[in-house]
């Protein structure tokens, strides 16, 4: 067992542990913080996959920006800290049906990927992948790149419009 295998198993364990803790905890802030562990472990997996640039972006966007915006949304809304309150939408039957459906999906996909192997050893990737990504982004992927900037602008304006107090509601209060 090489060092890469050990690192993979440790990071995979951390990722799955964070996700399972997210399902099990009751405090909303603890749920978000346990998912930060998953996001950081996934960033480590990107490093193992020789995608250092994506790993840094993962830490910046997921562990940084998205976690902070989720914590802000939690703080701006009221959450009951009552542990006895129901955490799930339905009863036992609903949960069992959801678990069965997810398990069936997982087993079906696992049957397909279990023996999947293309024989590539991963040595064909360029060592300086940040430079290669930049060159592809500004040559082959120029139009998708520009469209993503428009998408981010639309999301920014849309978020402001949605979260803004509308005139009628403000008068009612």
């Amino acid at each position, binding site marked *: 067992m090489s060092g890469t295998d050990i690192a*993979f198993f440790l990071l*995979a364990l951390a*990722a*799955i542990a964070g*996700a399972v803790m*997210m*399902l099990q905890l009751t405090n*909303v802030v603890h749920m*978000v913080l346990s*998912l930060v562990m*998953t996001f950081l472990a996934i960033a480590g*997996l990107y490093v193992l*996959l*020789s*995608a250092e*640039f*994506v790993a840094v972006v*993962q830490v910046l*966007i*997921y562990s940084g*920006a*998205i976690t902070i*915006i*989720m914590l*802000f*949304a939690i703080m*701006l*809304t*009221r959450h009951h800290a009552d542990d006895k309150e129901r*955490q799930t939408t*339905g009863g036992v039957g*609903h949960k069992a049906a959801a*678990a069965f459906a*997810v398990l069936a999906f*997982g087993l079906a*996909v*696992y049957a397909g*990927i279990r023996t*999947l*192997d*293309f024989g*590539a050893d*991963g040595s*064909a*990737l*360029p060592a300086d*992948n940040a430079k290669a*990504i930049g060159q*592809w982004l500004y040559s082959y992927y120029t139009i*998708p790149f520009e469209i*993503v900037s428009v*998408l*981010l602008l*639309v*999301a*920014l304006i*849309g978020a402001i419009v*949605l*979260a803004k107090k509308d005139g009628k*509601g403000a008068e009612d209060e």
Partner: protein
Amino acid sequence: MTLSAYLALSLILFCIGLYGALTKRNTVIVLICIELMLNAVNINFVAFAKYGPHPSVHGHVFALFAIAVAAAEAAVGLAALIAFYRNRKTVRVDEANSLKH
């Protein structure tokens, strides 16, 4: 490491996210579960970029696009959550039923 190990890990994370999105009652947690599912898909992109039939950085570029779209989705989803909370004074998914009756 083999490709199928990364794909299996990604499948496990996707299933956990899907189960949480289907059963959790808090809207913030449902949004976070969707982010977890998008993350699992990103692992697939990057794993295929290294171990796929044509190894190249195209998978990395697609993962970056997916991250950008996920960030936009989180911003709009949380803005919708704030608007919902202002109107109904709750963040529970099962109480968002105005269209049902």
